[in-house]
């Protein structure tokens, strides 16, 4: 047996001498290879975050909608991929129009993206991997928006909105801030991994949806008081936060887009600090204010810490990462109360977790960014504390206002038109019976739901 193996290996090395005596790869190739490995792993982590959203959304809602809510994410992830490949990526990163001044607003070219199969000489990262990474971000933003649709939107609304959001909402913001030709990029807007681009964008789409859809049946009483519609599984909720938390290392540290001098490690380090601050602060504030430590608030706090540190992870000192997380945890608690007070039904707390904390994270760069890190990344300058200068704060504020304004207006137009043309919401009967049955004809929890129905 061993003999046979040696003989055949010997014969092979005679036939293919390169196997035994390959040229050493150049330093550039090695560098590109290392970058590729890390960024592709990061992209996979970000795609795995969809698992977090599946559990988060399903756990925060009721049994009768569980199969629908979990399963539709797999469908929209697929559809989002096709649309981003066909159109979205072209608008976000297409460079055919780079010479023209319209490239400040949108990109052009690379429709039905057909990348080179390998990195060209001197390229730090194959464009295939860059594409997958960017696509994963678009899909996260879309899944955040679903928070505003939960438990009452028609399946067809998910279909149409996926197409329009991935084609004309997300890529535009992504272009403005992250494309080398984007106008906010040129102004030095600091949004490292997308507190604004990904999170605020998703949250404002969710806001438009939840306002146009109106609250779920039974969420508010006639006298204006709110009822608590408890999710059916808090364990899913906690697990989802852990999945998202881990995935976030791909989200933030992957945004270094390479290995380089190991700076992505610093990004990961700050990410962990921010998330920790958010979770701790949220539990404590709910305990102090309500007299009971609230689990849902704690979960939201961890996520809010992550959302807030997303823009800032590469620009601030460790102590600032902790402060940013702590404030995000407190903010998310009061924000949730605020939306409840103005009678906006936010089933998954997307508006507070991704919206309020997204704004906070973006503005926090204006306060805490250090000049040293801004110079290192060559994006903008230090914030108020380090430089005493308000310039960066204004840039951050501008990017929040302009991006927020664009997303809000376009989302309202898209969803408003959809509401007129096709209707967004299922009928009252369907909502009561649950979307599992009305949209898919089968329950996510068949045994339990059949029992519940027969006892009606």
């Amino acid at each position, binding site marked *: 047996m061993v003999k046979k193996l040696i003989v055949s290996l010997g014969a092979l090395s005679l036939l293919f001498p390169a196997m035994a005596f390959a040229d050493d790869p150049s330093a550039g190739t090695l560098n590109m290879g290392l970058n590729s490995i890390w960024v592709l792993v990061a992209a996979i982590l970000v795609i795995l975050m969809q698992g977090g959203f599946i559990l988060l959304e399903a756990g925060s809602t009721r049994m009768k909608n569980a199969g629908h809510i979990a399963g539709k994410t797999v469908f929209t992830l697929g559809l989002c991929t096709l649309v981003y490949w066909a159109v979205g990526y072209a608008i976000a990163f297409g460079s055919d129009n780079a010479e023209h001044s319209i490239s400040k607003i949108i990109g052009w070219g690379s429709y039905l993206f057909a990348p080179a199969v390998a990195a060209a000489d001197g390229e730090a990262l194959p464009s295939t991997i860059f594409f997958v990474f960017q696509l994963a971000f678009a899909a996260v933003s879309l899944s955040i928006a679903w928070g505003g649709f939960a438990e009452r939107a028609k399946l067809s609304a998910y279909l149409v909105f996926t197409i329009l959001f991935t084609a004309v909402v997300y890529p535009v913001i992504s272009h403005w801030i992250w494309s080398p030709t984007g106008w906010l990029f040129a102004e030095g807007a600091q949004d490292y991994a997308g507190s604004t681009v990904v999170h605020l964008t998703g949250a404002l789409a969710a806001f438009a949806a939840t306002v146009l859809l109106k609250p779920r049946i039974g969420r508010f009483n006639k006298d204006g008081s709110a009822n608590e519609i408890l999710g059916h599984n808090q364990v899913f909720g906690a697990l989802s936060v852990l999945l998202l938390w881990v995935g976030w290392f791909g989200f933030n540290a992957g945004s270094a887009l390479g290995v380089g001098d190991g700076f992505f490690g610093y990004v990961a380090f700050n990410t962990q600090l921010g998330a920790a601050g958010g979770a701790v602060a949220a539990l404590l504030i709910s305990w102090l*204010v309500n007299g009971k430590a609230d689990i849902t608030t704690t979960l939201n706090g961890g996520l809010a810490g992550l959302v807030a540190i997303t823009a800032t992870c590469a620009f601030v000192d460790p102590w600032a990462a902790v402060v940013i997380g702590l404030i995000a945890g407190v903010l998310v608690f009061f924000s949730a109360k605020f939306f409840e007070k103005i009678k906006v039904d936010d089933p998954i707390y997307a508006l507070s977790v991704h919206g309020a904390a997204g704004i906070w994270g973006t503005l926090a760069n204006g306060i805490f960014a250090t000049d040293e890190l801004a110079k290192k990344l060559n994006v903008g300058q230090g914030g108020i504390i380090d430089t005493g200068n308000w310039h960066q704060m204004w840039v951050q504020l501008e990017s929040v206002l302009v991006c927020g304004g664009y997303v809000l207006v376009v989302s309202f137009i898209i969803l408003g038109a959809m509401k007129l043309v096709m209707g967004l919401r299922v009928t009252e009967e369907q909502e009561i019976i649950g979307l599992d049955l009305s949209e898919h004809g089968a329950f996510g929890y068949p045994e339990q739901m059949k029992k519940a129905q027969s006892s009606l």
Partner: protein
Amino acid sequence: MSDSVRAKLFTRIGNTDDVIALRGLRDQFHEQMVTLQAEQPIEQFYTDLNEVHDALIRRAISLSEAKLARLGYGSPPVPYAYLLFGSGGRQEQTLSSDQDSGLIYEDAAEEAEREEIEEYFRLLSVTIVGTLQAIGYPPCEGNVISSNPLWCQSLSGWRAKLDGWFQEPDWECVRYLLIVADCRCVYGQDMLLHALKSHYYTDTLNNQTIVQHMINNTMRHKVLIGVFGQLLKEQYGEEAGSLDLKYGAYIPMVNAIRLTSIKAGVRETSTLSRIAKLSERGFFSEQDGLAFTAAFKLFMRLRLMTMTRTEDGVYTNSGKLPHAKLTRELVDELKAALRVVKKLQRRVQKQSKDRN
């Protein structure tokens, strides 16, 4: 209520021969009390109210006895005492309190009669509970009620049961022991209850671990005041913005005072008289005693403002103080009182730790 009005009412209750008329009297009396609520000092109001409740219950019992006699079961074969637990035992019933009751009867002289006597009192308690329900007293949700055989026993049966509870102090038994501490005889032979209570207090005072169990059992109700001195109100539902006065203020205070009394061997059942006795015996300083009394009177007053409704013909109450009634002055008063209770609660817990 003036004395003459009251005397007239008692006479009418005493002379009423059927349940429907008795219910009519209760409704009529309720209307009077609602208008009197604002005019009287709160203690006086509760005293009047509980005297009338007692009179109604007594009448319901004697009507039930008469009914059994008519049906051929004869009159009670041995002396007995009808007991009230809970707010009835503490003479703190509101306009809408439920039935927490028990029955204790003398042991049979002959073993042969035992079963027959037991059967009679089973029947009697079921009849009494039914009659009281018809007058608008809902049965106790926790099933602490005389029609439950657990709470309708002979004196020796009760003693054996208490001993069992003391020896096996699991959560449920400790709850029962705490319920017995508030027990009061509303009808029949007071001596029977007296004998039982002597047994109870000897046992408790000899058994310090039971007191620790009692503390663990009752201190879980939190006083509804937060770290920043804010009121902890209901967050959700139709009652959002209201304050759970019953479980966030009244019950914690009742529990803390009851525990202190049990430890001190104070046998009074009403919270205010317990406080008075404890101050008299020096367990509370005069100043603390006054503060506790004032806080408890406030809770009693506010309890009358909690949401009352008539449901399926019986008077019920959510125990929650509606948001609309929480005026600025009231909130301040309430916060001050809740701080007093929190202090009291801490003191009860600390004392128990010092002992161990």
